[in-house]
């Protein structure tokens, strides 16, 4: 099992994103904790790795802390055609076991909603 927890889920650009990854029962040579963004909606998904922290020779049970500066752009946003989500992603090698923990990065700490998108789209900020 893999769990990712962060001090909070909404961040302003430049703020420190801190948290802990805990796992048990994973035989792994190495794990990576990444801060990435990805898009969802119409068309092919796009993604970008913003920062990575590697943990070498991870034991089957353990935990690792992470700390990243919240990026200045792009903001978390949702429109009718595309949503952009920031997330902490953990990958275990080999085997590609992964886990994700979604965050909001935006000046107000709430996902930016583009014209015409109602407040129900702001589920990450809740």
């Amino acid at each position, binding site marked *: 099992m893999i769990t990712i927890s962060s001090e909070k889920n909404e961040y302003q650009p430049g703020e420190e994103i801190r948290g802990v990854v805990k796992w048990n029962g994973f035989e792994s040579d190495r794990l990576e904790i990444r801060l990435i963004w990805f898009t969802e909606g*119409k068309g092919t998904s796009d993604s970008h790795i913003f920062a990575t922290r590697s943990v070498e020779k991870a034991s089957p049970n353990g935990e690792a802390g992470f700390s990243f500066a919240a990026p200045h752009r792009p903001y978390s946003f949702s429109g009718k055609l595309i949503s952009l989500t920031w997330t902490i992603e953990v990958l275990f090698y080999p085997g590609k076991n992964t886990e994700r923990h979604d965050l909001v990065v935006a000046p107000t700490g709430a996902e930016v909603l583009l014209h015409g998108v109602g407040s129900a789209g702001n589920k990450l900020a809740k």
Partner: protein
Amino acid sequence: MNSPQTIRAARDNPFAVHRVEACGFRFPSGDWPSNLERLEEMGYRATILGSHGAGKTSLILELQERLETNGHSVLHVFVSRNAAERLVQCEAILSRSTKIIALVDGIERFNWWQRRNILRRVSAGLVVTVHRKWELPTWVHCQTSIPLLEELLQSLEISEQRLIQKAHKLFKLRKGNIREVFRDLFDTCAINPF
């Protein structure tokens, strides 16, 4: 339940690509283990046949994952529309022709010589998507149908009757191209209050 009235963001659109992809490929017959076994018997040299929007790309992407999980070295190439890029892609396939199973999505975009070279020189495995029968035997013939459309709508948890009816109309209009049907329905859910 997903209905157009509750949609607020692209990620919540029931026809968002990540949701459609999560439905997975539906074989005309058999399941993944039996079809993988058949592909192995074919020496991993086969075609995935089907018209536009019938699921060929979905199948080849899932196949890549399954083969890699089973320990195979795989090179997946989505053949570019750009001639210069196709040249690079062809070289990449040929340079690893004896070591990898090449999964070539859209081999018909390569010219005759490139196709010929790939067919002759790739020896470890070659699975390609085609719109018409080619020189390799057919592994899966992807075909769409109203029952398949309904099954996918059910997987996407679409219960709104007007949306289901619209899907049926679009299926005829798009001549069975389910990818286009779902793109149209994405727009319907994103733009129209319904």
